[in-house]
């Protein structure tokens, strides 16, 4: 398969006619991320975005917890 064909296969049109490639999820890492690449009419990359799609909320729910319990709790922010 030629490069043009591959790009045609994995792209789809965004709302304003712009071509968009979504890589979802980003793999081989802990945590959830997504890459979105926008192509111009010639198929060249015009812009690209990396998003972290997760939100946890430890800042809030740890409030009120005895301090000595915090280390074993926040170890689950990332377990890798």
């Amino acid at each position, binding site marked *: 398969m030629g490069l043009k064909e591959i790009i045609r296969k994995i792209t789809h049109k965004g709302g304003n006619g712009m071509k968009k490639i979504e890589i979802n999820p980003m793999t081989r890492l802990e945590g959830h991320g997504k890459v979105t690449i926008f192509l111009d009419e010639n198929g060249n990359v015009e812009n690209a975005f990396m998003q972290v799609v997760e939100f*946890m909320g430890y*800042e809030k729910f740890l409030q009120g917890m*005895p301090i000595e319990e915090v280390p074993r709790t926040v170890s689950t922010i990332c377990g890798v």
Partner: protein
Amino acid sequence: MSKPKLAYYLAGGCGGCDIAVVDLAEALVDVALALDIVFWAPTVADVKYKDLEAMPDGSIDVALFSGNVRNSEHEHIAKVLRQKSKVMIAFGICASCGGIKGLVNLHTTDQLLDKAYINSFSTDNPEKILPQTSVVVDGKYELTLPTLMDARPLDEVVKVDYYIGGCPPYHEHIGKAFTALLSGQLPPPGSWITMGKAVCEVCGRNPVLQGKPKKLATTVKRTIEGTPTEGACLLEEGYLCLGPVTQGDCGAKCPAANIPCRGCGGPIPGVKDFGLRAISAIASMLDNEELVDQIPDPVHLFYRYTLPGSFLGKRIKR
């Protein structure tokens, strides 16, 4: 005979369960050889959501789901995985009961976002920008994010065949679970995969196992207060340990290191609501009623790993 097909998904978790699988060490080689891994996202295999969606229904033999269901993406993949898989396992305490990350349910989404993005000590966000499910950058680049929801255990989204507790599951227990899976020696559907003993029953500090009587706690202590007597029951000394109601597939590793059990293993068989049972167990082991008032921060203690799946979980917001 073709190898059983395995899928693994990390939803609202931390990857600790993935690492616990890696902790199988040499046994991992046997497991990897015996299974065909068709999906393991996002941590291990480079397979995308689109590839999973394209797989035939029922084509995956076993799906392990770790982490709770916290946003629309987790929910979508949970439903897709259920459709593609013959057996679905809630792997670890987040998927089984909600986990530590399920403590978000104590607060509203607005409160959580406000603290993380606006009103925290190290945040500089004068425009008060918060994550949006949909945004157009520079007037032309459309980007989307999943919708945040209250945390839920997996069985509130799809049917779950088996549960494995632990934060993370203890590696020797994972080895036993894989052996049971591969040999088809599984308990009835809907069960926890566990040896069925409480942490106390395998704890070297348990006085009953040493032929001594069990004493009631006459004080309530935080773990920073004093040092536990060597070999003595932590609960008797006043360190609130949830070993009596927690599955002991971990081999009571925390009490062995002077750290009271916090219940990550999940409820012992027959218990539906871990927090309620833990409150009742601890109350029955205190010498007098006044001690109850000394328990620091009860909700983070009794419901640390099981709030979303509990009766209490859906009813309170601070």
